[in-house]
């Protein structure tokens, strides 16, 4: 069951929210929380009931380790055991085949099925263990950058925190200290019209981002990247339009998902942190990472980069820390070399930026933004293309090495274009390869990039702007939800 499907919106969500508040009113907050855990487990089991055992086992194991960590005299040892077990679980399900292929390229694949959301609930629980160990470990009451939980929560609260359906599948990766206190608050199960309305509005705007924008650009991107995967060469505009479309697809898809998650949590009186803050408006790559998938960036910074030494070490070590962090960030996205390359490129960009910032004055904001955007778009190519061959095909196209073509009707209307482009009847890897595909995709891309570059995001909009945005998008969301023949899953589900 996905957030952007009719069974979720007209079935699961109303039942879950109504039951939560009804139980809260008649039986108290604890029963409401039990209902929430039950709904969340049912939500998870919808995909594959077998993996429910894994999720429940992981929650129980981590809670036990947290208890041991707090109630025995060896917190460091229990923390190590906890982290090792979580990473082993993630390693087996996500990386076994990848590592096996590196060690023994000819060995048959294990074909381990990747349980949904394992990357997210594993990080979530590692964070919890580290935060629980922090006051025991070094006398601090908080984990780095957080206000960590001072006491062990109840198993019910912990289970609700990990399995809470708005963030279970694809984040945001919320800090225990941000959410656990909210789940234990006295007013949690009391309906608040303002929260329900705010949450519903944010959810509907996220739904529009996903169904109307992400899926539209996803279709355009798929045409180009699938053609490259099938051995075709892409001409200049086909390659650029596929790459620009993918950059928009992944932004609208994931930020749309995050908005929906934030909205759902808000309806249930829980506030999630912001996960996307107009990242394509960033004027440098470091700022991009402070705006893109903010909760993952925060996790990597506080639980990996800083423990490695962060930027308090020498330039060489700092570069190494950055590269390690970003390579692992890439690997977290998927057990494949294309993700490692993507992470490595971002590590390189960050390292270059850090050196540049040390030696020179910052670039003018506009130039910095353009360079950042170009670097980010280029790095999305291996991320999406999947293999070195496909990546090179797309990059060759973007460089114009596979020719520049334009529809003959465009060249007829604007004859000077004949100087740079060969006229063709249709461009086979552009949209539906119709005569008017080129102006259609051009106009859609223009709109998409206008939205991400010039407009405030949902969380920075005024209330009035949000309502106008809903007026502009709701009917198209209904169209896509109820009438589109194909519903594309969220991209981040695969991670």
């Amino acid at each position, binding site marked *: 069951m996905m957030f952007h499907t009719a069974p979720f919106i007209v079935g699961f969500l109303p039942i879950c929210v109504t039951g939560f508040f009804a139980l809260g009113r008649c039986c108290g907050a604890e029963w409401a929380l039990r209902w929430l855990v039950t709904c969340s487990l049912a939500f998870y089991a919808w995909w594959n009931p077998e993996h429910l055992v894994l999720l429940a086992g992981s929650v129980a194991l981590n809670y036990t380790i947290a208890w041991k960590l707090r109630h025995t005299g060896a917190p460091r040892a229990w923390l190590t055991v906890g982290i090792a077990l979580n990473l082993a679980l993630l390693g087996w399900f996500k990386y076994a085949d990848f590592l096996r292929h590196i060690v023994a390229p000819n060995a048959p694949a294990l074909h381990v099925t990747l349980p949904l959301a394992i990357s997210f609930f594993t990080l979530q629980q590692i964070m919890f263990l580290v935060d629980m160990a922090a006051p025991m470990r070094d006398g601090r009451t908080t984990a780095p950058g957080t206000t960590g939980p001072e006491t062990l929560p109840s198993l019910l609260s912990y289970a609700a925190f990990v399995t809470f359906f708005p963030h279970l599948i694809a984040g945001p990766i919320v800090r225990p200290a941000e959410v656990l206190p909210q789940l234990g608050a006295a007013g949690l199960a009391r309906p608040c019209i303002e929260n329900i309305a705010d949450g519903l509005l944010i959810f509907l705007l996220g739904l529009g981002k996903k169904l*109307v924008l992400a899926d539209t650009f996803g279709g355009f991107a798929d045409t180009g990247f699938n053609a490259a995967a099938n051995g075709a060469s892409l001409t200049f505009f086909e390659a650029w339009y596929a790459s620009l479309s993918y950059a928009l697809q992944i932004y609208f898809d994931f930020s749309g998902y995050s908005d929906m998650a934030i909205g759902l949590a808000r309806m249930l009186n829980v506030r999630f942190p912001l996960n996307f803050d107009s990242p394509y408006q960033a004027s440098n790559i470091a700022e991009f990472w402070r705006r893109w998938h903010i909760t993952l960036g925060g996790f990597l910074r506080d639980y990996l980069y800083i423990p490695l030494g962060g930027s308090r070490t020498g330039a060489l070590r700092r570069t190494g820390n950055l590269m390690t962090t970003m390579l692992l960030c890439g690997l977290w996205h998927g057990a494949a070399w294309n993700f490692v390359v993507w992470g490595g490129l971002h590590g390189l960009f960050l390292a270059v930026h850090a050196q540049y910032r040390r030696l020179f004055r910052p670039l003018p904001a506009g130039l910095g933004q353009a360079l950042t955007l170009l670097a980010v778009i280029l790095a999305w190519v291996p991320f999406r293309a999947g293999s070195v061959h496909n990546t090179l095909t797309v990059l060759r196209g973007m460089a114009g090495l596979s020719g520049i073509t334009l529809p003959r009707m465009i060249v*007829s209307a604007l004859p000077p274009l004949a100087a740079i482009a060969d006229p063709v*009847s249709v461009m086979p890897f552009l949209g539906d390869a119709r005569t*008017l595909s080129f102006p259609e995709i051009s*106009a859609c891309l223009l709109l998409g990039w206008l939205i991400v570059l010039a407009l405030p995001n949902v969380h920075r909009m005024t209330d009035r702007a949000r309502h106008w945005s*809903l007026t502009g998008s709701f009917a*198209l969301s209904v*169209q896509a939800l109820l009438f*589109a023949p194909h519903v594309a899953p969220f991209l981040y589900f695969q991670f």
Partner: protein
Amino acid sequence: MGRILLACAASLALYIGAFTWLLDRPLTLGALGARIEASLARGEAIQQPKLVILAGSNGPYSHRCEIIEPIIDRPCINAGVAVGVGLDYLFTRWKKLLNPGDIVYLPLEEAQYARPRATGDLGPDASIMLRHDRATLWALPLRRQIAALFAADLPAVIMSLIETALTDDGFHDPRAAANGGYNAWGDHVGHTAMLAALNQSTLAAITPVHPTAAQIRTGYGTVLITDFLHWADLNGVRAIGGLPTGFADSPIADDSLAAIRSIYRDQGAGFLDLPNHSRYPRTAFFDTGDHLNEAAQISHSVTVAAALSRLTEQKHARSR
């Protein structure tokens, strides 16, 4: 909460209102609508037994009624439009103009059999009906009427605005100059081998997609075609199935061919299968795997006309 409901209601009202009364796609859908109306007008004007070719765009590009008409000795109308246009829409429009003794030749594209209902409901005909042909829309099932209200996605919204503005501004559509046009029979003309030579790199890069036999058998298009064949049989209209033109290096699989053939034969309709299964080398095509260039179109039409003549004469002889 009230403001959210108001925004949602306003959004729906604006969307439906705009696409029912205001926005249009005169370049994309306008061209298709004009094609449909022109062939219907020709069909209405002809009072004697006629041949109607119904298909996607391989109809007008790969078949030439102008050539076929004198060979089979009856008026011919090339009423193929585009692969995405709903068959239920075309059949509904044409049923009114088909009389006993008429022949309908259906060299439908494979995708037209395999198309799922949800995709068919949102084809270009949905918007054409909503904006210009509500009488036909009301004659279709309620499901189709509701889908027509929601046929426009984001690219359609954007292109509606652009195309409406361009047309209001007197934009001259350059497609006819670049690709040719249509004659009085509804055939596409002017897509010469010389123009086709400019598209050889495009043609070389095309990888045709063939639906499987199972997709053809279970597709919603097949349901619509079967219903039409049944109607034709009841009303004395002779329906003859056929194969669309395509690349010789990408043949239709044998089981898919059998599936297509059995759709017609199971309903007692004829089926015309040329020795080459209507497959030609890529050099015989114009811009896509469905569109022969003009020279190949003429040659294919002569072959089809001769085969149609034989098929109809056999039937005639049997009935005597």
